[in-house]
């Protein structure tokens, strides 16, 4: 593919609009592109990468950070200290096993050929067993480390849950129950940290919305309905939202509600109420 053609279809390439074969041809052409030509494509990539900057920012759950770091920790190569410890352990095992070996006495020539072969076989078996034990030892050490990391991760998760429970029962936390309207079985609990002015909302039994709709949470004040979040629920009808109340919502906050809106949300509520609560 010529550079002229690559340049012409670059805007389509960077947003993934090309069919597989053409995209493959572009990539092949880019392998031999000059640095200047590479920069032209890079610039188009940057245009494409700005598209998601327009999206309403969503916050992933806090526990994902911990999970990521745990996964990375498992992938970390052994440090020089760990390697030294493991080598030292293997040496100890070797020395211990060496002590268990009976002194080998050179047989006299007069002894039978069978006895000599038996000794050779026994030695080979011993060597094989030692090598196997070394390998097993190293494997067990790795498993022990993995279990140790897993235990630490669980401890941290438990501590996090403990903190969550403390937050829930704290006098500064106010609990608001949202009840289903359009979907009567749906319900939600809002845990309002009245010091940090943060909401943690746990939604239950709210059916996953149709593909061209989203749910939208609103702060309802005396003067306005302010969009709080656009969200979807999973196949069990659940989701968790964590929000910080903006100052304009705090002034005169009277209620909160969830409506079904066109995909991406609406500037003002247009759909039916699925959850609501007075405050």
């Amino acid at each position, binding site marked *: 593919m010529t550079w002229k053609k690559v340049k*012409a279809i670059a*805007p*389509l390439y*960077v*947003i*993934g*609009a*090309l*069919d597989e074969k053409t995209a493959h041809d572009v990539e092949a052409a880019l392998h031999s592109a000059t*640095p200047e030509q*590479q*920069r032209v494509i*890079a*610039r*188009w*990539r*940057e*245009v*494409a*990468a*700005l*598209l*998601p*900057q*327009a*999206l*309403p*920012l*969503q*916050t*992933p*759950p806090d526990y*994902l*950070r911990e*999970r*990521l*770091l745990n*996964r*990375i920790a498992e*992938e*970390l190569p052994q440090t020089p200290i760990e390697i030294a410890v493991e080598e030292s352990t293997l040496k100890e095992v070797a020395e211990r096993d060496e002590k268990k070996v009976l002194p080998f006495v050179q047989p006299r020539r007069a002894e039978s050929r069978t006895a000599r072969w038996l000794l050779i076989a026994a030695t080979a078996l011993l060597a094989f067993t030692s090598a196997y034990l070394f390998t097993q030892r190293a494997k067990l050490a790795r498993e022990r480390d993995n279990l140790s990391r897993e235990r630490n991760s669980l401890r941290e998760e438990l501590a996090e849950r403990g903190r969550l429970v403390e937050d829930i029962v704290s006098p500064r936390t106010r609990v608001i129950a949202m009840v289903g309207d359009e979907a009567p079985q749906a319900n939600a609990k809002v845990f309002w940290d009245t010091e940090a002015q943060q909401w943690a909302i746990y939604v239950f039994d709210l059916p*996953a919305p149709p*593909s*061209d709709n989203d749910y*939208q949470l609103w702060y309802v004040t005396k003067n306005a309905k302010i*969009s*709080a*979040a*656009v*969200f*979807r629920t*999973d196949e069990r009808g659940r989701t968790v939202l964590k*929000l*910080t*109340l*903006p100052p304009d919502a705090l002034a005169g906050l009277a209620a909160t509600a969830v409506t079904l809106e*066109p*995909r*991406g*949300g609406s500037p003002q509520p247009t759909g039916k109420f699925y959850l609501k609560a007075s405050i």
Partner: protein
Amino acid sequence: MQLAIDTAEASERDQDLVSLVESVAAGDQSALAALYDATNRFIYSLILRVLGDMGSAEEVLIDVYTQLWRQAASYDANRGAPLAWMATIARSRAIDRLRSGWQDQHRKESLDVLGDAPANAASPEESAAASERQRFVREALNLLTPEQRRVIELAYYSGLSHSEIAEKLNQPLGTVKTRTRLGMMKLREALAPLLGEG
């Protein structure tokens, strides 16, 4: 038509991210944590927009940062800003998940949401600069015709090729290609200040 924005902060942020990516490439775990803190909302929003499902978006988010950890050394600052590189990886992983059929029940049909989507509640860490960029890009998208926006969004967020888009919209392939190209060129012109071209 170009919009106005102060790009000094964006440039400084890019430099910070380049430093973090370099430290991640050197195996610095705390740098990965810092990179995650600085970018997770943007990356998560992108993945969530593609997949439309929180559970799978969370899994893909972890996968993306694990991939960044493994491949940070392959990042070349001469080939684009770090956030663009990260967005490319995130979109690619999310589209892979979408194509795997995992998300069939959630696949999006209407995608005309970028320009007028309401902002989520601001978190304490959300900087004024991020809001400014968000507003700026939305204004740029609003300069496009609805048809141009639609084809770009169908390609970028739904992973559809131009022939799939033509079939979906019942439009000639040539029309889809032209709309996409013109839309992207208009976007590039409008976003020039953010790209250091203004």
